[in-house]
């Protein structure tokens, strides 16, 4: 049970880090991107998105700052830190290994 939750939490973190690798984004944008790029298969709404962001920020993997634009409300933009980049690389490798293994065992792809 706990590892299932951890798995979901972990994948959310990896996804956010990956999206922030492209450029700085704010929370709403992240939510929309995840929804759109996964064709609605993955959804991160407010209740889980922001805790994840705060957790990542706490661990120094991302950094948030308020940006004010003329005529609009201020928004909080998140940027990937150097540590975040390293973690993302490591997680990508792990997942890749995991998928390769999973595929070898469970034969997802046709031969």
């Amino acid at each position: 049970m706990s590892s299932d939750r951890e798995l979901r939490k972990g994948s959310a973190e990896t996804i956010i880090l990956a999206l922030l690798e492209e450029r700085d984004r704010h929370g709403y944008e992240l939510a929309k991107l995840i929804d759109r790029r996964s064709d609605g298969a993955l959804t991160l709404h407010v209740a889980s998105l922001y805790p994840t962001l705060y957790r990542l920020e706490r661990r120094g993997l991302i950094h948030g700052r308020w940006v004010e634009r003329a005529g609009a409300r201020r928004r909080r933009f998140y940027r990937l830190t150097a540590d975040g980049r390293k973690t993302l690389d490591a997680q990508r490798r792990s997942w890749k290994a995991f998928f390769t293994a999973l595929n070898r065992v469970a034969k997802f792809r046709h031969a």
Partner: protein
Amino acid sequence: MPDFHALVRERLGPLAVDPARAADIVDELAQHAADDYAERVAGGLPEREAIAAALAPLEGRSRVALELARADRPRAAALQPADRGPSRAATFGRDVRYAVRLLVRAPGFSAVALVTLALGIGANAAIFSVVRAVILRPPPYRDPARLVAFLNSRSEAPGSITSSSIPDYQDWRNRLTSFESLGLLSGWTFNITGLDLPERVFGGRVTGSLFQTLGTPPLLGRVLTPDDDRPGDEVVVLGYRVWQRLFSGDPAIVGRAVMMEGRPHVVVGVMPPRFRFPADDTELWAAIKDNMNGMPRESRFMAAVGRLRPGVALVTAQAELDATTAQLAAAYPATNTGWRVTLAGVQGVGIAESRPALAALSGAVGLVLLIACANVASMLVARATSRRRETAIRLALGASRARLVSQWLTENLLLAAAGGALGVAIAFAAVRLVVAYGPSDVPRLDETAVDIPVLGFTLMVSLAAGALPAIAPAVRALRESSALALKEAVGGIATAHGRGGALLVVVEIALAMTLAVAGGLLLKSFARLSAVDPGFDRSRVLSLKVFLSPPRYRSVSEGKQFIRAALDRLGRVPGVEAAAAISSLPLGDPSSGQAFTIAGRPVAPGQRRIADYRAVSATYFDTMRIALVRGRTLTDDDRETTARVVLVNEAMARTFWPDENPVGQAIHWSTGYPQFDTAPHTVVGVVSDIKTLGLDKPDRPAVYAPFTQRAFPWLRWTSFVVRTHGEPEAYARVVRQALVTIDPQQPIYQVVPLDTVVAKSVAARRFSTGLIDLFAALALALCAVGVYGTIGCWVAERTRDIGVRMALGASRRRIRAMVVGRALALTMAGVGIGLALSAATSRMLVTLLFDVKPFDAATVSVVALIVTATGAAAAYVPARRASALDPLTVMRGE
């Protein structure tokens, strides 16, 4: 546009973070909701539905608020550095819950680890309580570091320490300036009458200054003071035990008179339970008054104790005492030449004998604990291996290594805490057994208890035992690349779990081997010692004691009369083959040395000849079946009025007449009683040596004299030995009755078979040997568990390998041989290291061994065989399991 700020705030409720930060969070979420709303409205959704949709994710408001706050909390903490506690406590709480869940889920692992730790910790707690009671716990005296005992010894025989004489004590008291006060005690056996039965109680006649010197406050009433030395009513202070035993702990006893020695003694106080000066068996203290007047300077049997003045060092006091000793030797050359007096801390006196055994026991339990830890560590390594997948996934998902380690540590500490709790229960039970069955001659052993310091010690040991085994697996697991671990875990590829676990097992076996060698050597020593012929026939002999004291037996002849009458009565009890009397029962009583001279053979000034004086009845040698080597034995015709005759033992003959026949030689005693000392005592025979001080100690030069010819008044203790036709215990009652008819007021005590007396003389050794062997067995059992676990793991990892081998034609027997071979390899490596360890440490055992070399080849080989066989046997079950594998299933399962 609606005020999302307010709507969000309302839905979240209070946030458990810094208020400024809370505002930020609300701001951010409100912006999100506003964006969502705007998009939905643009998509054509009615305004009201768009608001509801945008806010829907926030509806489980308390949960969301909690999630947010939890995710954010450390940031809040960073703003308020003083408030780090809750998060750590929360983490710890979570870890504990998680650990409990895991342990419950693996009941087999948890149970074995728990029992292993409990045994290791429990054994340590028990032995520590003994060490604490016997050695570490300060005696109940005021400022005990300043209390010293006076130990007298002849300079030519440094080992023979004895007590002090009254005249010497008086001179010390008058001359020494290093001491605040001095006290003196003379051991005394009190016959208490006026109770249901006459009772014999061992106590002391003490100077009033003794209590002042020791400084222990009484439990009830008062202690003795120097005023009590003056003539007047006899007064006595009771020890706690005798107060409970004879007077049922009645507080009204204070002020009442008790008949002791035929005179009323007024009880003035009761001492607390732990007050036992000078030894455990002392139960009451009567004022010395004039009871000891006229004791000669060479009667050195009083315990003297002094309290150093504040700031005076022991060496300073010793130097002053040395000068005084020299002055006394010059003034009294006949009695004081050659004597040295040494000061020793009161705390160390009496435990010198127990120290090596306790040290060995502490070492042994320490080893048991180490083995237990190694065992748990190797189980954890195995578990960490099977938990690699979990570890790898958690690492991949971003769990920090510190978190993982702290969680493992929590798991182990929890295990150790449970083990420690169980261990305390074991210690409680063990201490009970120790107090009930431990040897009576280890001082303060009966005070052994599991108390606060013992619990503190146990807590520390438990923490160490919890943390130690976790280190190896944690380091191992964390060093591995998580990607590799994941791959392996998922791919199910066999890996060498082996090295860490194997190493631990080898260490375990080496430690157990060391312990087993020590246990084997001690066991062999004990067997050798038990097989020692004491020189007398101890079977079917009942022994009993009397203390013939004033007023009933004031003169020497009154005492002799009792002995004569007793022998007569005892000899006529049906079923009694023979009865005899002796002043000091072999292996049961201390013997007393007496100075003598040999006619025509003067010694250099300052030199003295000393031999044990044993007053016996003529029947003694026949009753005890002690062999006559030369000359004649004593007969009933050797009476008070006939010529003085004695027998000597072989040790005496060897020492003083190495090249001559002692028979016909004459000796003169120096007792200070002229009518006794002037008469020549002619040696008429030589008897063989017997064991008197201990089965492991040679007999001292000794003289056996007819009790009828004794003329000095001391030696009031007399033992009777009665050879019976059947079980000696069955005669206890009739023998007692026979003596009661002579004097109903005379207490008779220690009515026990001689066999028991002999067994008691080796009780301490039996006890420590038994314990060390118990620990060795425990160590071996733990090792077996360790080997079983490690080999089981090894087999599990090699399942596929074994399947392949079998598919390729390996026979089941070969597979079994392979597995057992692996276990043997580990075991033998451990045995080899253990041998080296034993060789290096066995010298520490020397003082405990008897007639066995510290590295006795036969013992060591047998132990090595046992340990190796244990290792092989422990591997047998996994080996069978391996050989029972079906190769097809194994390969398919892959």
